[in-house]
């Protein structure tokens, strides 16, 4: 690879790459996202590679191992171009058949097609699947078209064109104006205006400035940043380089969670390739501008998603936040001006530069522009990553894309915004999804986790879960967060154990207020949100635990009883075998029963019962 030094160099490289692609070329793409990995996509890809290598007739096929395609629940996913055939739940044994039937004879394999949950019709192409139909995959869509470790693939789809436009056709101030005009707001959670942040950082006094990409993604239930950095690392890098040029930053860091090894690896590869191509390093594209990026690994601390804690972590210190009286754009990494944006924010930048702020701001609502990627997970049929224009309703996301309830239980809420957000009840599902609407109802956009909850989810348990989560992740620096969350957790523990009393809820609310008002950083300030929103919308559930000593969702173990329905039990004995406390008695082929005093309420019996005879109340 030789260094790209001008616009024409880049154009020539792109043409060269495209000229090598033949018309009507068969491209078999196997999704290599982490979800598909769990279902065995590597075996599928290896089998494809092996057969293609051995069979001369198939050697023209291009095999592509892409990043996450979003529909993780149906993995491993294989698509075949140019026909656009979408196969799901593909196993290693299906590979020879796909090659001989679909690729060579053009025959569609029915058993690998997606079946529409409502119409029960088989769907052949990706664009007709309801899960994808409602989405507008502006940022995430490229994941399916490229192999993340090949810079040529990215160049082929127009990669680094925005960089060349920014460097040769725009002045740094113009870039900032363009980002400001686009209305892009930070995708990491708080939703601060990106252009404004860049401007503040550019204006901050100092020669040396830092650019940081936050891929700490600690919010449980959210994984879009992972999929972007794993699946299209160059788009993130390109955004960072443009940002650095606009702000006049000289060095960048991508802070990645240690739990995301593939994201680290692919980002590292992309950095090396970008250096070789002349997009990073000294005299980028012959412009005289110098900028380089390196990876900094996290250590598994949720608080490091907070900007000042993240900076402390990069400096090699304990990840404790500091007071933000002086913002990081003025004094950040090593006391120098630092501009920090989230992965998804950076990935949006090349799009805006390429297509213009007007185009970008035409998508979304008045104050929330563009698209947002959500991880739609929990008790919903179609789980995965979805990218939708801002302003779409929760109902459209959960029912049209998500396909509604998962196993017969009515959906009652959706949790957004991670541990800083809240639970939104089903009665508010007509709410448009944008930064301000979600905040108004007591939740927040957050980084984009959307965890669907149904009647089998106990909201007291969820509130307790988040408080314990945050208590554990609190860095311990300030007292309200460290001690307040602990006490809130104790109150919630007592309620779920049936030991709550008339004062529990008022005490909980009072503590929540103090923690929110007096904590040092965002973690503590927003920590009471899950509890307060649960109390606001699901107070009767709390009251049932306290006054009737009953858990309506049958989750809190001290308040529930397991039993076996005599009429449904087939006497297979599987439950008795798995029961850890030997609490299930019964003769083979006779109805079984549970000894309440021995039962540890682990629920194993319910999990294994094929006749659905185990009842819980």
């Amino acid at each position, binding site marked *: 690879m030789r260094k790209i030094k001008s616009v024409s160099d880049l154009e020539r490289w792109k043409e060269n790459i495209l000229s090598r692609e033949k018309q009507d070329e068969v491209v078999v793409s196997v999704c290599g996202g*982490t*979800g598909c*990995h*769990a*279902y065995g996509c590597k075996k599928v890809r290896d089998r494809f590679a092996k057969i293609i290598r051995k069979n001369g007739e198939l050697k023209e096929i291009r095999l592509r191992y892409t990043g996450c395609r979003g529909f*993780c*629940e149906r993995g491993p996913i294989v698509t075949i171009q140019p026909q656009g055939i979408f196969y799901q739940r593909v196993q290693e044994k299906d590979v020879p058949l796909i090659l001989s039937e679909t690729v060579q004879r053009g025959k569609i394999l029915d058993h690998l097609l997606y079946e529409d949950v409502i119409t029960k019709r088989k769907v052949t192409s990706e664009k007709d699947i309801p899960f994808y139909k409602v989405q507008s995959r502006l940022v995430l869509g490229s994941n399916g078209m490229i192999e993340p470790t090949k810079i040529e693939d990215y160049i082929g789809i127009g990669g680094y064109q925005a960089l060349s436009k920014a460097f040769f056709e725009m002045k740094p101030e113009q870039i900032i104006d363009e980002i400001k005009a686009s209305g892009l707001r930070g995708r990491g959670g708080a939703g601060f205006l990106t252009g404004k942040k860049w401007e503040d950082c550019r204006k901050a006094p100092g020669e040396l400035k830092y650019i940081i990409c936050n891929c700490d*993604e*600690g*919010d*449980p*239930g*959210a*994984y879009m940043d992972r999929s972007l950095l794993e699946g299209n690392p160059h788009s993130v890098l390109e955004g960072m380089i443009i940002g650095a040029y606009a702000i006049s930053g000289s060095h960048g860091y991508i802070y990645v*969670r*240690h*739990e*995301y090894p593939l994201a680290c690896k692919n980002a590292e590869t992309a950095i090396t390739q970008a250096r070789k191509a002349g997009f990073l390093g000294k005299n980028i594209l012959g412009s005289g501008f110098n900028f380089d990026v390196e990876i*900094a*690994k*996290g*250590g*598994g*601390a*949720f608080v490091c998603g907070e900007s000042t804690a993240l900076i402390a*972590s990069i*400096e*090699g*210190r*304990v*990840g404790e936040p500091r007071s933000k009286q002086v913002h990081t754009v003025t004094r950040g990494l090593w006391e120098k001006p630092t501009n920090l944006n989230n992965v998804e924010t950076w990935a949006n930048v090349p799009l805006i530069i390429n297509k213009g702020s007007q185009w970008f701001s035409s998508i979304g609502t008045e104050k929330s522009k563009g698209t947002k990627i959500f*991880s*739609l*997970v*929990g*008790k919903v049929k179609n*789980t*995965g*990553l979805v990218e939708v224009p801002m302003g779409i309703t929760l109902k459209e996301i959960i029912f049209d894309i998500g396909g509604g309830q998962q196993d017969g239980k009515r959906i009652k809420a959706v*949790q957004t915004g*991670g541990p800083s957000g809240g639970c939104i009840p089903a009665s508010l599902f007509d709410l448009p999804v944008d930064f301000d609407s979600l905040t108004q109802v007591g939740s927040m956009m957050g980084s984009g*986790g959307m*965890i669907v*909850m149904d009647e089998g*989810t106990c909201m007291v348990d*969820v509130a307790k*879960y*988040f408080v314990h*989560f945050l208590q*554990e*992740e609190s*860095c311990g620096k300030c007292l309200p967060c460290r001690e307040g969350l602990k006490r809130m957790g104790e109150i919630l523990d007592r309620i779920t154990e049936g030991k709550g009393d008339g004062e529990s809820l008022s005490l909980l609310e009072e503590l929540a207020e103090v923690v929110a008002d007096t904590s040092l950083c965002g973690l503590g300030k927003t920590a009471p949100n899950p509890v307060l929103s649960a109390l606001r919308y699901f107070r009767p559930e709390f009251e049932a635990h306290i006054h009737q000593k009953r858990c309506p969702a049958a989750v809190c173990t001290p308040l529930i009883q397991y039993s076996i329905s005599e009429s449904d039990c087939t006497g297979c004995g599987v439950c008795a075998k*798995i029961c*850890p406390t030997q609490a299930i008695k019964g003769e083979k082929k006779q109805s079984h029963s549970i000894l309440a005093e021995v039962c*540890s309420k*682990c*629920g*194993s019996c319910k*999990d*294994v019962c094929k006749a659905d005879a185990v009842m819980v109340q």
Partner: protein
Amino acid sequence: MDFEQVGKIIDRYKGKRTALISILHDIQDQYNHLPEETLRKVASRLQMDLNDIYGVATFYKSFSLVPKGKHSITLCLGTACHVRGGPKILREMKKQLSIEPGQTTADKQFSLNVVNCLGVCAIGPVMFVDGKFYGEMNTLKAKRIIEKINKNNKSKKRNGVKS
């Protein structure tokens, strides 16, 4: 134990303080935990106070000062996994291995860890065993994974393979 590798790891990061967390990760990968001797070496090479290194090593959850088991079992208890029954899997694992999260079995075979999100939320509950993800877990599947590892260990022993 031979700690020669530590110097090489620090060299790889050009002895930069910023790389402390990455250096500790690499040491942990090499020795399965962070032995005291290695932390002392890091302190002297990076010219940092040992207390600060100890602070970092104990603040971040990825690090362990005690040796971990041969097989690492990481259970995700992120929100998506939690609402889909993650806590039940944890109860089953605790029962199977007779240890609490963060502990290692007496025979040094298994370490049980609980994390707040593995980022594979669409197919929860998720378990990460020896570098492999297992999705849509239930108590039975979890039990079988442990049984399979135990069976493999036994047959390796029988065949004279050093475990």
